[in-house]
């Protein structure tokens, strides 16, 4: 005899799994179609849907390049901007957070409160002023305008502070001080090796954010040879590629696949990085 209680649980559980599978299909199908269609020819795509890859990957790439869109260069540009942004955001994020966590200076709590406020304030509304001000220094159409603001990335500082509070061992720092290490030397040689997992997690988020950033790059960068991938995607939407479906999907896949690979490797860190704030107090 199955009790009514167990029967109810069983029914509920079945319902939940069905619901989850439906959500999964909605989540994955568009991404799957994107990757699969990148390997199919335009004719095949027009003939109908397919869940299986085809063999036209290289042909699509040839078409993509033949119309004057240099995905390779865009990829390199994006890689450079994202890597530089990541280094700046992670290094200065941890530097600032270390100052907050280790030193009990006057105004520390006020400064931390200010950082939290900055995280919530939408800075995008000042992009026009930022552009105009950068143009005075000739820094528009320059990657520096995209990268340098990350010196003051409040979000990175917040993450780094949360992380450092859980890993820092004060005794090690005191010991290094007795051994005569300079304060910045302690940061570089004692703290940084200890914080590698946290820095890696922040690096993933910083990289994805910079890689995907369209709006700022779109406002600030103007010459075509400096276009990053999201800006090339905008070009892909244009008339030149109107009927070249295979090439369009391939162009989009090129922007997405590196992130998919990264996610396959590091999803554990990404998910726990998101949840981290909540699990700590």
């Amino acid at each position, binding site marked *: 005899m199955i009790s009514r209680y167990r029967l109810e649980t069983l029914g509920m559980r079945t319902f939940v799994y069905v619901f989850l599978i439906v959500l999964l299909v909605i989540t994955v199908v568009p991404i799957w179609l994107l990757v699969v269609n990148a390997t199919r020819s335009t004719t095949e795509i027009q003939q109908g849907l397919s869940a299986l890859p085809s063999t036209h990957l290289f042909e699509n790439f040839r078409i993509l390049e033949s119309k004057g869109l240099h995905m390779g260069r865009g990829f390199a540009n994006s890689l450079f901007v994202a890597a530089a942004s990541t280094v700046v955001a992670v290094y200065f994020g941890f530097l600032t957070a270390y*100052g907050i966590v280790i030193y009990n200076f006057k105004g520390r709590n006020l400064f931390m409160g200010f950082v939290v406020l900055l995280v919530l304030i939408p800075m995008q509304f000042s992009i026009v002023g930022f552009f105009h001000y950068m143009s005075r220094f000739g820094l528009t159409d320059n990657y520096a305008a995209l990268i340098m603001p990350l010196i003051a990335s409040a979000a990175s*500082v917040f993450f780094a502070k949360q992380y450092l509070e859980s890993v820092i061992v004060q005794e090690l720092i005191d010991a290094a001080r007795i051994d005569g290490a300079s304060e910045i030397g302690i940061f570089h040689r004692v703290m940084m090796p200890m914080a590698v997992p946290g820095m890696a997690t922040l690096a993933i988020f910083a990289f994805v954010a910079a890689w995907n950033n369209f709006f700022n790059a779109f406002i600030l960068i103007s010459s075509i040879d400096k276009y990053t991938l999201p800006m090339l995607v905008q070009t892909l939407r244009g008339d030149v590629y109107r009927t070249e479906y295979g090439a369009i999907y391939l162009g989009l896949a090129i922007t997405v696949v590196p*992130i998919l690979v990264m996610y396959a490797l590091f999803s554990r860190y990404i998910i726990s990085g998101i949840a981290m704030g909540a699990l700590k107090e």
Partner: protein
Amino acid sequence: MRRAKFNTHSYGYLFIAPFIIGFLLFGLYPVYHTLTLSLTDTTMMTRQAEFIGLENFERLFADDFFLKAVSNSWLIWSLNFLPQIGIALLLAAWFTDVRLKIRGTGTWRTLFFLPNLLMPAAVAALFFSLFSYYGPVNQFMVQAGFQSEAVHYLQEIVSTRGLVVFIQWWTWFGWTTIIIMAGMTAIPTHLYEAAMVDGASAGQMFRRITLPLLKPILIFVFVTSLVGGMTMFDIPFLLTDGRGSPASSIMTNNILMYLKFSSSKGHIAFASSVGVLVFIMTTVCALGFFYLLRDRQPKASVKAEGQLAEIAARQGEPA
């Protein structure tokens, strides 16, 4: 010997100095500059700009396009936020339910979060292709007999707006689920045990224990999502012609700002005033919401603060 007098804790100022300098140069000054620009008649062409007071703002309020952009942003945001938070609450409740024992919760979360990492520009272009006249969606709908013939999805107001709402929801529901689930697992289990002893039903426990203790997290999700929604750009910009077609139905605040900015004269003063007004509107709404849901017990705010680590990590603006 001078060094011995220098308090070690003062080194803190040196460590935070780059941040403060960076903030003054790239954060605060642009904000100040945007504000002052919005009070002038500056264009990209002019060298000399004149102070014109609040004239830009008067013109904005008289401008149907501005009102349309604001109402579009609110409509698109609220239509995606409600199902987003609803499904996230549901999933988080199921995943943490000890009686249901759902398997592979980690894997489900990981998969549902996937769309969030993809480049929004590419996602917009992808859905443009999927829903175009000769695209796969039309093929499928016609072949399966749901439609008698192909439809111009992106020329209809309802389907275009619906698609933007869907994409925003698709991008963010996994993120919201992870945040809410983290909040739920942080609730002490003894509270539920005590409630169970008192004979509370699952629904009662959800309303009386889970929701109140989740409030700081819900406020956090609301505020970050609102900020993202009010500054939404990539998806509506790239889904149609970049002007919010059809009939300006997906023209959002930031698209309008961009259109003013990139207009032939480069009306950057006017574009700045759009940014300023959107900022004021968003901040007032966020603060109002904080005030309405404020917790009388100060402890809860600490938790909401803890939630920020996640944006910390992302630096993106959720929508």
